[in-house]
């Protein structure tokens, strides 16, 4: 890997800018993370909790 201080030109960002490279997950992944957060004791560190809801069933 190159140094972290290297700046990428716009034409060098084709891979980084790919939608699949985003840190945020897709809606389907977020729903599954929501299921996991209910069925397990942990919360997701980078997920956004869109709403409340018991999920206790």
């Amino acid at each position, binding site marked *: 890997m190159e140094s972290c201080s290297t700046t990428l030109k716009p*034409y060098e960002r084709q*891979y980084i800018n790919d939608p699949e490279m985003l840190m945020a997950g897709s809606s389907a992944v977020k729903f599954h993370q929501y299921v996991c957060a209910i069925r397990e004791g942990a*919360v997701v560190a980078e997920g956004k909790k869109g709403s409340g809801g018991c999920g206790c069933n």
Partner: protein
Amino acid sequence: MNKRTVLVGSLAFSFLVAKAQEREKSEFKLKETEVELLYNHYLQSGDNSAVTGGEGTERLTVYGPSFNMNKTVGKNSYHFQLGADIISSASTDNIDNIQSSASRLDARSYSALTYSRYLEKSKTTVTIGLSGSIESDYASFGKFLGWSKTSKNDMRTYSAELQVFNDDLRWGRLDDGFLSEPQFLIYPVELRFQEWYDDYKRDSYNLSLGFTQVVDQRNTIGIFSVLSLQRGLLATPFHRIFFNDDTRGVEHLPDERQKLAVSLRWNTFTKGGIIFKNSIRGYTDDFGILGLTLDNETAIKLGPKWTILPSARFYTQKGSRFFAPKGEHDPGESYYTSDYDLSTINTWTFGLGWKHWPANRKNRGLHNFSFRYFYYSRSNGLRAHTISTSFNFLKKRRVKRKNKK
């Protein structure tokens, strides 16, 4: 002029105009509307329902349509979400032990609205939002405030978000149509001779921090953390407890809970057109729960129109000190639960899906659609299947800025 120069020059020009999030500095501004129609279908089975004290069916089906819309006009972005989870739960029917139907139906409606403003000079985005969800035994109202900043060279991003949820656990909101006055906390039918709780509210405060770094052309790393504080009624009032002396009670947990989660993430775009999104997450709270997650999502690009999406996840959890199986709690204990969500467990998830761009990624119409399946297996026997389908519509164009007088 050789071919290489023409190609590099063309790519440079196309990337300057094609990136959806690029901020316009010219007389034109980007206007983009994205609509997502999503449907989630969830099937669950198991035999450790907390409603029946840690033993009993956990059969559950959720039908979950939702609508998401993102609209960007220049530096302003709006996000709107509306959805409903129609829940058919066998365990909920056991709150009163009356078999009213194959299983009881409930519905959770939810909505969220956020607004973001991009501040060009400082490369900062500020976000505010509201959310709400309502079901028969729960209402939640959320507010959030977010901030993110990108470095001058677009190589680093810092983010912070504060979420506040104010919840009400009383029953009755859907009894006489939508938004009826909530009545009371619901306890198991045989335990309604007293009020087990004075409080019916639950408040949650979440502080999320994030940092991402573009390492090189093909690698990005990120570190994220969530610090969470919950106060109020944290137990579920209709979860039964069977004590070791054959007496019964309702679940009782502390009225405060502090949680901390930290996640490290590494996304890499390999030379074979395969993207690996890897993460490792740690979790701890003052209920005594420790959790570790290893997660991989992979995107295999079969060309410009098709992507295959396999995924795998492993989670291991040391359970809460307040947990014990049915019949093992002592009535002299201060706090007790038989909810296996808080027990010592391992879980495995395997997923497979695909995404398709039907129209050569044009700026109007159906942009892409995807299908994903997840199989979830928990070490105490709970099994779940999730099917998610998504249709994304996109309309993108450049409009002339209005001249400021």
